[in-house]
């Protein structure tokens, strides 16, 4: 059966047989870079359309339906408009930081892709500290947002950036602690180990109640980390017009927008990997026949289904909930989520030590 794993292996062997190993690595890097950028573009197209269709569905309207089949090319048309627009730099802005900020945000979003396993054997970099790497890199994005807010020379932007800084720094704690719950179960930070450990069942089922609590905390925390409603205080349209990207226009704005969607994809991919077994098909204990039937679905399809399921969940939040206030947001983290995730981590440790998990 042709799978992504075979394709990558074939390319790797072919390259090593025909050119020197250094050149082969360089060519592979180039291919990976192109693929990552291609993924970015496709994600932008798909997720923006998906968001608009999901919101339209929830808001009893049709959504984009003029450009292309059922509006499928709407995002392309929007991108074209944004490309053609002038990227203004306001007077009095810090020009260097203002023009750098969106690249920082983009690079941060891009770097997190490295350790993600998109399918069986289809992974850019299986680093041994994968989970740690992800939580480290995901905090870089906030620097870009702070830069944008500060450099815009706009009070709304500054307020939005400050809110965003406080929010992301706080919610990273809970996100990190809930990720640790899964690390305890596997004893490894490597993404491939975590996925392989879920061969006989996903962690959300195997880890008893602590895993479910960890998942709920994780979803809340990553929604906050990606600045999505109900935690979209950094943008807070009705309060701060558009928050940190008020002054951005044209492609500069588009990059922020794209980074937001890629971030959603990335955090959902992490959630799917940790709690829903990544590309691992749905396996239930010793049901051989069932497990075998599930294996027929390609691993990349499994991964996509899980990730888009979680993305739909996050979009559902956005179109249902009102926005929190800034002090309520921080209260939620420091007074409820953080103590809860600490206790949860402790419970998970006990479960893992006693071997109560499946």
């Amino acid at each position: 059966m042709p799978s992504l794993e075979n394709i990558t292996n074939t390319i790797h062997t072919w390259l090593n047989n025909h050119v020197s190993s250094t050149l082969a690595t360089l060519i592979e890097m180039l291919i990976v870079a192109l693929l990552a950028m291609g993924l970015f573009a496709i994600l932008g197209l798909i997720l923006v359309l998906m968001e608009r269709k999901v919101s339209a569905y929830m808001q009893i309207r049709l959504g984009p339906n003029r450009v292309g089949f059922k509006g499928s090319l709407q995002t392309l048309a929007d991108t074209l408009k944004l490309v053609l627009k002038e990227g203004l730099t306001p007077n009095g802005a810090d020009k260097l930081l203002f023009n750098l900020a969106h690249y920082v945000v983009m690079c941060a979003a891009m770097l997190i892709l490295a350790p993600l396993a998109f399918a069986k054997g289809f992974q850019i970099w299986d680093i041994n500290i994968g989970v740690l790497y992800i939580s480290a890199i995901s905090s870089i994005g906030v620097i870009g947002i702070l830069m944008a807010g500060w450099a815009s020379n706009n009070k709304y932007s500054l307020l939005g950036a400050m809110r965003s800084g406080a929010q992301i720094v706080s919610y990273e704690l809970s996100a990190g602690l809930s990720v640790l719950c899964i690390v305890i179960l596997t004893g490894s930070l490597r993404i491939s180990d975590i996925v392989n450990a879920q061969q006989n069942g996903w962690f959300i089922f195997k880890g008893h109640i602590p895993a479910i609590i960890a998942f709920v905390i994780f979803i809340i925390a990553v929604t906050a980390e990606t600045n999505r409603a109900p935690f979209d205080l950094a943008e807070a349209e009705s309060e701060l017009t558009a928050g940190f990207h008020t002054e951005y226009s044209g492609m500069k704005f588009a990059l922020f927008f794209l980074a937001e969607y890629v971030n959603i994809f990335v955090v959902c991919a992490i959630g799917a990997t940790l709690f829903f077994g990544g590309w691992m098909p749905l396996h239930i204990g010793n049901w051989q026949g069932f497990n075998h039937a599930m294996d027929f679905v390609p691993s990349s399809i499994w991964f996509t289904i899980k990730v888009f399921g979680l993305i739909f969940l996050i979009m559902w939040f956005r179109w249902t909930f009102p926005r929190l206030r800034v002090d309520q947001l921080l209260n939620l983290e420091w007074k409820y989520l953080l103590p809860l995730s600490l206790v949860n981590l402790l419970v998970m440790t006990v479960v893992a030590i006693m071997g109560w998990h499946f």
Partner: protein
Amino acid sequence: MYRTTDILEHKQSPSAGGVGEAEYMVINVGPQHPATHGVLHLVITLNGETIINVEPHLGYIHRSIEKMCESLTYRQFIYTTSRMDYLSSHINNHCCAMSVEKALQIEIPERAKYIRVILDELTRLASHQLWWGAMAMDIGAITPFFYAFREREMINDIMEETCGARLTMNYMVPGGVMFDLHPNFQKRVKEFIAFFKSKIDEYDEILTGNVIFQNRVKGIGMLSKEDAISYGCTGPTARASGVSCDVRKLYPYELYNNIEFDEIINTGCDSFARYQVRMQEMKQSLKIVEQLIDNIPEGDFQAKTKAVLKLPKGEFYTRVETARGEFGVYIVSEGATTPYRIKFRSPGFSNLSALNHMAKGNKIGDLVAIMGTIDLVIPDIDR
């Protein structure tokens, strides 16, 4: 609690560690801002996220309607009032028509009275629906807006069929209403009532019961009964502070003294109380329309009036309850065909004046929640 005036006093006193006013940030909210629903210009002073002072600046859409009215006849000046509180245009027109009728002692036919009250209440419903959606959007929930507009659209269609307009109606004229009802009117209003009754619980499900929403509106924007009276607040804003001020109950006009409905009074004094008052008023409006829709008497829809109206010399004041509060028309007549002076008492203006008092010490996020619950329509404030 973080919101106390003592924090402010502490910051402002020169002895308190040398933190002066230079720390404060001044932000212009509006005239073009997504939260001000129109073109209200607020200058807010901030200490971090906390509001120190809110100063509304008016004049951006001042059209000098009162002055214009001085050169318009008593039939013409009614049209300008549709452009003031555009969400209560029927009710504004009603007030003007009534003031002319009162001055000339015109007795209007019973049918016209029924039509007027039904349309008033439908207008109130439409206005409250729009308010509900817009307020949810201020707080950050975008979806309720579309639910609100689904029902509002039905009312707008009824209005369009009845008087040919969806926003600036100009349907009430001195002596009655301009045309007779459309034959479909009763059927469509009944359809709307049945539909809205099945959907009004959805409003509570999606927004009122939401814990985030309740946290956002409970305990903020406090306006005590005394303050509400001294700022001259009327309508749901004042009734949520426990002030009984429903003109329909206290000074009944048209049919209101024969109709069974409750004046909604809440003593919560906060944004949530104002929210609840409006939500319950929608149900009362439904009740009023239900009582009247089957009993519209046959007959004339307009009394016979002279072609040129001349008010006797004197001063006339009429008031009605719009969706936002008490709307008054004060006419000074010198006996000519045009008024000598007209003054409109608009509810939004007085309610806006309480905004600074309500918002002080709250966060920026609260400011939009408070503005949402006092339901400002800017052309009504800035005439």
